């Protein structure tokens, strides 16, 4: 496998413009002759479906939910970054680029990130024009706030529901094209395999979740916007249905998987309360703008927070990072929370939590201002915990939230399989080893509205595609394979539920490949995962049939893929003998406990190639070069 990243050369400021000019165009009259499959209807998939349809392509879009409006992008709370510099506080495209490369701990590609920063400007314009109800100043202009890891106010937001509003914007644009007949929508339909014909991605195999019919869909190109793999941990802030099946099956068809060990732990989630817990809930990190994080100075201090005087509190982020304080990036905030809890200073019944205290902000700004900024988050917290955060400080703890790794793509967002494009969280491209707050929405929409519609045209215009249909042997093999897998899961008739396996896998990964990792733990995990997988295939129990709505069967297929994917994630974490961003290896830290990168040996993208069942994957390295932002140890002191 050859990794050709197709990165532009020359000055970075004009690289994307030059590339756009170099790319071939599809004549407007010819666009309608092409059909494109998009899997996923979130910010990336939804935006690109709408845009491709506006351009005149025939789009087929697939999602497993009952409507494209449900995609998990909807749950993003805080905001979306754009280098508009409306606040006149010194922001610029170059600063957003710089912050994102540094925030990613120097493990992302400079030209990709610069393009993202440039396009951030267009995204805001597009979303405003669509009617996204962004927060406004009294004069009618757009309002901004600062957000974790940034020292300028460049985050645009719609209360605590920015993801929802941006997604509904994309969804409405999609529905307009569905109404016009330019997009054919397939809700409650899951992708089970990728169809590769003559070395090119030409379609997908799907299962209709209502009647269980497995079918092949053929097109001229396939786009995956299927999100991340955070649910491999069972407990995460992802939606219950979010899964890695589409990207994993594409990997098994030849798409390289990049940096699977880069997972992001979000510092402000509601702590776990019991064994029945089905998911974790995130509280937007915008809360860190006005809330102060602390734990008691003394170990095992069980007094209620209002009984602990100021002098006996440790505002540990403000103490250790005076210039960024509570606004340090997510990985730093998460690791510090773990560290104080490991010291026995955690709060709450389990001792796995820290306080996020708004009492100072109430005094400074008044309750009204706090309500306006975070009202819905406070309500959500009270609903879940039964505690009133206006009276008692919130308790928070880190949880798996986002995955920076994903399918490897070149600058054109194409994977190692020609014709297979990957966008949004499903690819690996822009966030390096750590994503900054309010950047996921930016990347999903940049890929969807403004990058893929150009690059896919270049591919279609410069590629000769033979006629293909669902009777093609590759399509039939895919359909038979998917049906075989479904029947196999149903025929085991074992004794353990799908969830029990998923929980066990999640616990194993959280322990050995979670917030902190070490070689011994990872080796243990690599030994235990195949054992658990074997037991899964021997004793999983899926009731019912394959010809009906069968939610256990859907889950079983996804967990079967996690059982394989988990191994790749641990292997990647073991092979990366350094700490960077969300990947913290305990063996590699500075005396102060900060992540210690090894730029000499690990300044590369790790792209893994599938080599067949039972055979170890092959590692390919794409070296990273930094011409504009000089790698240095990240300091937020």
């Amino acid at each position, binding site marked *: 496998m050859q990794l050709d990243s197709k990165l532009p050369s020359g000055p970075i400021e004009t690289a994307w413009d030059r590339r756009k000019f170099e790319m071939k165009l599809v004549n407007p009259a010819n666009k309608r002759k092409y059909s494109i499959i998009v899997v996923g209807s979130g910010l990336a998939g939804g935006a690109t479906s709408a*845009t491709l349809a*506006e351009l005149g392509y025939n789009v087929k879009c697939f999602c497993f*939910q*009952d*409507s494209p*409006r*449900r995609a*998990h992008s*909807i*749950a993003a709370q805080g905001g979306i970054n754009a280098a*508009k510099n409306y606040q006149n506080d010194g922001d610029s495209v170059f600063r957003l680029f710089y912050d994102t490369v540094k925030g990613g701990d120097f493990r992302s590609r400079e030209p990709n990130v610069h393009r993202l920063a440039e396009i951030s400007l267009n995204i805001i314009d*597009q979303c*405003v*024009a*669509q*009617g996204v*109800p*962004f*927060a*406004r*100043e*009294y004069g*009618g*202009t*757009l309002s901004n706030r600062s957000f974790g890891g940034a020292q300028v106010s460049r985050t645009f937001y*719609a*209360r605590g*529901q920015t993801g*929802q*509003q941006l997604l509904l914007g994309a969804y*409405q*644009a999609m*529905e307009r094209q*569905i109404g016009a007949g330019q997009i054919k929508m397939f*809700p409650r339909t899951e992708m089970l395999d990728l169809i590769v014909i003559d070395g090119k991605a030409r379609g997908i195999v799907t299962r209709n979740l209502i009647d269980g019919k497995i079918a092949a869909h053929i097109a001229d190109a396939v786009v995956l916007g299927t999100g991340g793999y955070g649910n491999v941990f069972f407990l995460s802030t992802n*939606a*219950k*249905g979010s899964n890695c099946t589409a990207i994993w099956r594409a990997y098994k068809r030849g798409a390289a998987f990049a940096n699977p060990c880069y997972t992001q732990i979000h510092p402000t989630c509601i702590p776990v*309360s*019991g064994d*029945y*817990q*089905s998911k974790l*809930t*995130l509280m937007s990190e915008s809360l860190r703008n006005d809330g102060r994080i602390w734990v008691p100075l003394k170990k095992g201090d069980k007094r209620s927070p209002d009984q602990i005087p100021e002098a006996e509190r440790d505002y540990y982020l403000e103490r250790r990072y005076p210039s960024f304080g509570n606004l340090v990036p997510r990985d730093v905030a998460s690791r510090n929370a773990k560290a104080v809890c490991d010291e026995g200073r955690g709060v709450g019944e389990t001792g796995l939590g820290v306080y996020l205290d708004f009492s100072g902000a109430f005094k400074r700004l008044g309750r009204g201002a706090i309500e306006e900024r975070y009202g819905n988050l406070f309500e*959500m917290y009270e*609903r*879940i915990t*039964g505690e009133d955060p206006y009276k008692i400080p919130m308790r928070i703890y880190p949880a798996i939230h986002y995955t920076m790794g994903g399918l490897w793509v070149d600058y054109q967002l194409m994977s190692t399989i020609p014709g297979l494009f990957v966008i949004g969280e499903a690819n690996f491209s822009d966030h390096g080893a750590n994503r900054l707050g309010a950047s996921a929405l930016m990347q999903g929409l940049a890929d969807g*509205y*403004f990058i893929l519609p150009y690059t896919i045209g270049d591919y279609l215009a410069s590629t000769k595609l033979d006629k293909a249909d669902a009777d093609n042997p590759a399509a039939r093999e895919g359909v038979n394979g998917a049906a075989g897998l479904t029947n196999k899961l149903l025929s085991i008739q074992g004794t353990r*539920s799908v*969830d*029990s396996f998923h929980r066990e896998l999640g616990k194993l990964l959280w322990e050995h490949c979670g917030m902190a990792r070490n070689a011994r733990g990872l080796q243990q995990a690599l030994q235990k995962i195949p054992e658990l997988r074997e037991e899964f295939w021997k004793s999983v*129990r899926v*009731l*019912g049939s394959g010809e009906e*709505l069968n*939610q*256990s069967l859907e889950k079983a297929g996804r967990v079967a893929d996690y059982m394989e994917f988990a191994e790749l994630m641990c292997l990647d974490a073991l092979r990366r003998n350094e700490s960077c961003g969300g990947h913290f290896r305990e063996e590699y830290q500075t005396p102060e406990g900060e992540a210690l990168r090894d730029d000499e040996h690990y300044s590369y993208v790790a792209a893994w190639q599938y080599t067949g069942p039972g055979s170890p994957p092959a590692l390919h390295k794409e070296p990273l070069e930094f011409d504009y932002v000089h790698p240095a140890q990240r300091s937020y002191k």
Partner: protein
Amino acid sequence: MNLILHVWRQKSSGDAGRTVRYEANNVNADMSFLEMLDVLNESLMDRGEEPIAFDHDCREGICGMCGFMINGVAHGSQRGTTVCQLHMRHFKDGEELYLEPWRAKAFPVVRDLVVDRGAFDRIIAAGGFISIAAGSAPDGNTILVPKPAAEIAMDAAACIGCGACVAACPNASASLFTGAKITHLGVLPQGQPERTERVMSMVAAANRELFGSCTNIGECEAVCPKLIKLEVIARMNRDFIRASWSRRS
């Protein structure tokens, strides 16, 4: 705590369906309603019974996927709360609960508590958007939006499309849902060029889908998990009347 559940079981859209009694034992007060059902489902599967199918995804009250009737109330009796965010601390030991899917001609039952809400998507497809192709937008700050208008738009845009309003309405009207989108787009300057067409085609689409008419009962507002106000229906009606007149002239 222990609860008695009477749950609507229906194998497919063609099946007649019936209520089945279950006992949910050792329910923890900190569980969400759906977590309680997860635990019940695990015990059903241990007995070789197929689990109860219910829609859910984000479990944070924002995706709009979950929802069913608890004792005749959409999403249960906790105000402004979806079933995924409803916690068991609001129930009493020994309580009997009846769980049923949304009931409306436009929302056919798929299985158990799962219904097909595709009709909502078709209402949006009829005009619930602003026609602006990617790439053709002016700079964001050239469109000034008065703060009060932005707030009204956001209040309406908070709708999650769960369908509780339809399920609660004796007429199975989709007016709260449709009115919310018409309000969101209609109070913004960006939404003005298509305002007339939008209301006409969205209302027509809701009628085509066999949703009933609004008779100002207000059950929708009472159960809406996002507290969308009846005011959006008034705005829709006003726009509709104005649109009818302006079309005629």
